[in-house]
């Protein structure tokens, strides 16, 4: 009977003290010197050594703090490009910029191969670094999956030139995604396909899901912490509003879900398992949204103003939740899988 996901538990290499030091360094890196590329700032921190030591803890901290600080950097695209490069055995892909489907959902592709060209329709999570190539998950027709690597300089330049910033909901969220719409000649790209490409994409998606879940947990924790602080200062009827149980219960309920989600993210970070990553992101998305709902109610009218920072966190939650599958679609996917298999796998061993 093999119904348990996970092998014996690897304790984190980084102990609590080292992790705290890492977190405070990352907070500095993510909030200061934003004109310098994140990769450069991380390199100065000795990031590669930290990752070599304990990649799960390092990445979890990076993404949580990215959420807490509403960092404008995009650590996700390079991470996924590196993952795809490793899986596909093509090292030159590691520095490519990733064009996600316009749905932001990994199985709902919007770019496709059409005869002799690739119709690219998608989203860059941040500005593509100068000189980078493009990686595009594509529908190769009749449901076949592929990853296109656009390497021709002119084609990339045309695509980047035409990319337009997305502002509708995201302004102020800290993130600056770009819409990409272009057509590339098939001869300007290499297309990886077959089960190998599919598996590479699934591995990258799992990595993207659990790190995004960590980011959602980070935002949720920050939003609740600031709401708790506000509720301790704001008085009505001669007492701090935080002393009213009506508010305490809202916040405690959301805190419970955030803590629960964080435990799932902890586990997902230490497994290379798409199922655990899926559950982590579903749990974190729902928890972060509830945290925002309860924080907004705590702030009352002031939280509804443009001037107040709250809406920036709310926008960030919406964006990160959508990225690689929102919690509603993921809950549906989880439940459908359990219905189909009749199995509810136990995640995590003692």
């Amino acid at each position, binding site marked *: *009977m093999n*119904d348990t996901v996970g092998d*014996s538990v690897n304790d984190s290499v980084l102990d609590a003290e080292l992790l705290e030091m890492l977190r405070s360094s990352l907070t500095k890196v993510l909030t200061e010197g934003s004109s310098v590329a994140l990769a450069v700032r991380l390199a100065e921190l000795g990031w590669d050594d930290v990752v070599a030591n304990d990649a799960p803890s390092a990445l979890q901290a990076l993404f949580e703090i990215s959420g807490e600080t509403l960092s404008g950097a995009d650590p996700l695209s390079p991470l996924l490009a590196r993952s795809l490069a490793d899986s596909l055995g093509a090292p030159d892909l590691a520095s490519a910029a990733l064009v996600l489907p316009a749905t932001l959902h990994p199985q709902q592709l919007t770019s496709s191969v059409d005869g002799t060209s690739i119709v690219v329709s998608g989203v860059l999570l941040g500005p593509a670094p100068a000189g980078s190539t493009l990686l595009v998950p594509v529908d190769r027709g009749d449901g076949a999956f592929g990853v296109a690597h656009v390497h021709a300089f002119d084609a990339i330049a045309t695509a980047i030139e035409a990319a337009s910033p997305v502002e509708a909901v995201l302004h102020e969220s800290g993130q600056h995604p770009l819409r990409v719409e272009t057509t590339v000649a098939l001869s300007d790209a290499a297309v990886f396909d077959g089960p190998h490409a599919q598996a590479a994409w699934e591995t990258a998606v799992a990595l993207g899901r659990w790190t995004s879940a960590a980011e959602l947990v980070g935002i949720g924790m920050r939003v*609740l912490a600031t709401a*708790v602080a506000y*509720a*301790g200062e704001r008085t009505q009827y001669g*007492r*701090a509003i*935080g*002393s009213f*149980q009506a*508010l*305490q*219960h809202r*916040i*405690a*309920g959301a*805190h*419970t*879900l955030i*803590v*629960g*989600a964080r*435990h*799932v993210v*902890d*586990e997902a970070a230490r497994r290379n398992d798409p199922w655990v990553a899926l*559950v982590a992101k*579903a*749990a974190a998305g*729902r928890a972060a949204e509830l945290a925002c709902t309860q924080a907004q109610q705590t702030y009352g009218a002031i939280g509804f103003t443009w001037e107040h920072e709250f809406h920036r966190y709310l926008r960030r939650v919406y964006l990160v939740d959508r990225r690689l599958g929102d919690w*509603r679609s*993921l*809950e*549906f*996917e*989880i*439940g*459908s899988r*359990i*219905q*189909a298999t*009749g*199995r*509810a796998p*136990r*995640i*995590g*061993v*003692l």
Partner: protein
Amino acid sequence: MIEHPNYPSPTAYGEALSGFLSSDPRVTPYLGYRPHDFEEGAGHLSNLQRLLFDEGWSRLGWPTRCGGLDGDPRFRAAMFDALWLHDILIPEAFTTLEILVPVLLVYAPHLADALLPSLLRGDEGWAQAFSEPDAGSDLASLRTRMEPDSDGVGWRITGQKVWSTYGHLARRSVLLARSGEPGHRGLTMVLLDLDQPGVDVRPIRAEDGENHFSEIFLDGAYLPGDRVIGTLGQGWAIAMYMLQWERGAWGWIQQGRFHNRIERALEHGVASPANAAELGRAYALTTALRLRTRDTVNRLAAEETLGPEVSIDKLLIVDAELATWDAIRHHLGAAFELDDALHWLRGEFFFSRAAPIYGGSQEIQRTLVAQRVLGMPRES
């Protein structure tokens, strides 16, 4: 039979136990067992408890001085996981052990040495008697009192207890009584024999139709002097110590149940896309509960002292329990109301409605998390 219980990890032990559960014919009567009622279940499962004790499996995780084979609480957690994986109900007594044994080991070593071996083996059952008709969430206001007996060494206990799990099937009960001043300082924890004059135990039929708990009427029941757990006035501190065990172990047992029951329920009826998301949510919450309580069990195994954060474990139990059973009821459709063969799922569903009430209500836990964990202000 465990001869040398030196398993390198709880997982290795769990695998060995799984081998026993799937191959030994003496286990067969418990696989997929659905009790006709609470009393029949308690009797049948006490035989399982004895089998697991005599074969050594349930002794791992408890100290040798009380009949165990040493090892930490993670081994008990691994046993619960293996039992649920084989669709074997956890004897109610195991839950009681998780809560009461650690207390006796720390606060009443003399009682632990003398009485725990027969408790672990299931030769006798114990109950817990804390709540009273006028003291539920506000436990510190309880009024059952203990007064010195005329013999100069013992005590007489008078009052009324309620919601005592296992009460009418138990030989003894751990009980919280007032020995002194009002409030939490005047409370003392004791171990009282229920089979004596002055004790009247009456089962209460619960919403699911079963006698899960009892009322206990006490009219001058006798307590020998050596049955005080801890010292006089230490009752509240002991109750708080007890809670940290209750949250972690109970939460871990429950996640095993929820995983199992989701799978069992799907063996009936037809899965509908309309119910998929709700099922996915229940599973995600159950996973969060599993990983949270695994952490708590690990901390208990490392002999850390747990604080108010264990209320988060209880709140996750509530979220997972309600979500799981709602999803199961919706999946079953009309079979939930009409299929006699599903009486056991229906019964467990109704019991789940107590999740936000038992063991400290959801409101109390949320207040504790807000004030003691998050530092929100108390009412002034």
